[in-house]
C-alpha cells in the first residue's frame, strides 16, 4: 500500500486538554453523530491540521478517551461505537509495539493509513455534497419551458403481405376443403376417434395451458351444433389422453374454461 499519508507514531503524553474537553462536550451530544466514523471525523478537527497530516494515534487516544468519558457518565453507547473503540485500541497497540515478524496481518501503519484515507474521503464527500447543493438548481434558480406544446403522435400502420402469404392463405383455405369434406357430409357429428387423432397431432405443441375450445377444428367452431359435437368429442378425447399420461387437464372453477396442455416432464 503506498504510504502517502503521514501520521504521527509518537505517543504524545501531552495529549490535548482541549481535545479532552471537546470529547466531553461530544459525549453529551452522542446522538448527533452518524456513527463512529462521523465522530472520528469531528474529533480529528480538534487537531487543527490538514487531514493528511493527522495523527491517527492521537485520534485513537481521543476516541478512547471519549468512550471512557461516556462510560463514566453512564451513557449507553451503541455497539458500533464500542466495536470501533476495540479496534482503535488494537490499532494503538499495533502502532506502539515493535512489529512482530511472525505476524501475517496488515501492519499498524497500513491500518492507520486506511483509517486516515476513510476520514479524508468522508470529509471530501461532505464538502462535495455541500458544493453540489450550492449549485444553481432547476426549478429554483433556472427554469424549464413553462408552456410546453404537446407533440401529437400520428401513427401510420403499413400492412405487409407477400404473394407467398397470399398463396399460402389460399392453399390453407383450399386444403381445408380437400381434407375435411367428410366432416361436412357426415353432418354435425364429430367422433371421438377424429378428435383423438387430431389431439395426438396437436398435443406435442401444447406447452402452455390453452382452452379446450382452441383445439376444435376450424370448420367445427362456428355452427353451434357442430361446435357442441366437436367440444364433446374433444373433451372425451382429452380425457383419454390424460389417462394415457400424454396430457394434463384442469378447470379452475365450475363452468370455467377447460384447459389442456401437454404433460410436462
Amino acid at each position: 500500500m503506498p504510504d502517502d499519508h503521514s501520521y504521527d507514531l509518537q505517543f504524545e503524553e501531552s495529549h490535548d486538554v482541549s481535545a479532552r474537553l471537546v470529547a466531553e462536550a461530544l459525549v453529551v451530544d452522542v446522538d448527533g453523530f452518524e456513527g463512529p466514523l462521523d465522530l472520528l471525523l469531528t474529533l480529528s478537527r480538534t487537531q487543527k491540521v490538514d487531514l493528511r497530516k493527522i495523527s491517527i494515534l492521537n485520534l485513537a487516544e481521543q476516541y478512547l478517551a471519549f468512550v471512557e468519558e461516556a462510560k463514566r457518565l453512564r451513557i449507553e453507547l451503541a455497539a458500533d461505537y464500542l466495536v470501533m473503540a476495540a479496534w482503535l485500541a488494537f490499532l494503538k497497540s499495533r502502532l506502539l509495539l515493535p512489529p512482530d515478524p511472525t505476524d501475517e496481518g496488515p501492519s499498524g501503519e497500513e491500518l492507520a493509513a486506511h483509517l486516515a484515507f476513510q476520514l479524508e474521503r468522508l470529509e471530501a464527500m461532505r464538502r462535495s455534497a455541500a458544493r453540489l447543493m450550492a449549485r444553481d438548481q432547476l426549478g429554483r434558480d433556472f427554469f424549464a419551458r413553462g408552456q410546453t406544446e404537446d407533440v401529437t403522435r400520428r401513427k401510420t400502420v403499413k400492412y405487409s403481405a407477400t404473394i407467398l402469404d397470399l398463396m399460402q392463405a389460399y392453399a390453407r383455405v383450399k386444403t381445408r376443403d380437400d381434407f375435411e369434406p367428410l366432416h361436412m357430409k357426415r353432418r354435425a357429428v364429430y367422433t371421438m376417434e377424429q378428435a383423438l387423432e387430431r389431439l395426438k397431432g396437436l398435443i406435442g405443441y401444447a406447452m402452455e395451458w390453452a382452452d379446450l375450445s382452441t383445439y376444435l377444428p376450424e370448420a367445427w367452431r362456428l355452427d353451434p351444433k357442430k361446435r357442441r359435437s366437436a367440444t364433446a368429442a374433444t373433451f372425451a378425447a382429452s380425457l383419454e389422453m390424460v389417462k394415457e399420461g400424454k396430457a394434463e387437464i384442469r378447470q379452475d372453477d365450475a363452468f370455467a374454461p377447460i384447459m389442456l396442455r401437454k404433460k410436462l416432464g
Partner: protein
Amino acid sequence: MAENRENDSIDSLFDAPPMAEQERMLEAILFATAEPQTVKALEDRLPHGADVKEALTHLQKRYEGRGVSLVKVGDAWAFRTAPDLGFLMQKESVETRKLSRAAIETLAIIAYHQPVTRAEIEEIRGVSVSRGTLDLLLELGWIKLGRRKMTPGRPVTFIVTQDFLDHFGLESPKDLPGIKELRSAGLLDNRPPPGMMNKDEDLDDEDSDQEDMFD
C-alpha cells in the same frame, strides 16, 4: 451642478435596468411561465421603471423569422412555435404489421374467386367474415366493390384492385398460380397443424375481436 450630479446618481440607483437587460428578463419570464402574460403582469415582475411595452417590441423583433415567435394572445404575450414549423410538432411513425390470417385468407379468396360475395367468401372459408376484415382490405385499397350479383337480394361482390396487383407484382388476377401449381410448389401439403402455428392467428378466425386487433 454638483447637486445635480448627486441627484443623478441617486436616481440611477433606482433606474430601470438597461433595455437589453429588460429584454432578457422578459425573455426568461415568457419562456418559463405556464400562461401567456399580460403587460400588467410583466410590469409587476420587472424592476420598477422598466418599459415593458418597448422591451416586448424589441423582443418580438428579435424573434422575427426564428423557430419560435413572440405573439400576442388576447391582451397577453407568449412564445409560440412559428406557424410554418407546426409540422415538427407531430411525431409520425410508420409501423409495419402483418395482415391477420383472416384478412389474408379473405383477400386470397377474393383474388381467386372474384367477383365474389361475402356469403361466398364465408362458404369457402368455412367461417364468417367480419365487417372489420373487409373494411381493412377496402381501406388498404386492395379490394373494391364489383358489380352486384344477379341473384336474389342482389348482393354486392368484391374484386381486387390495380393496387392489389401492383403490391403483389401481378399483371392480372389470372397470373395467380392455380391449385395444381400450388400443390406442386409444395404449398398445399405443408399444412401446419391447425391452431398451433400461432395462437393469435387462430383466434382471428373467430373474427370476434377483429376490430381490436388494429387499434
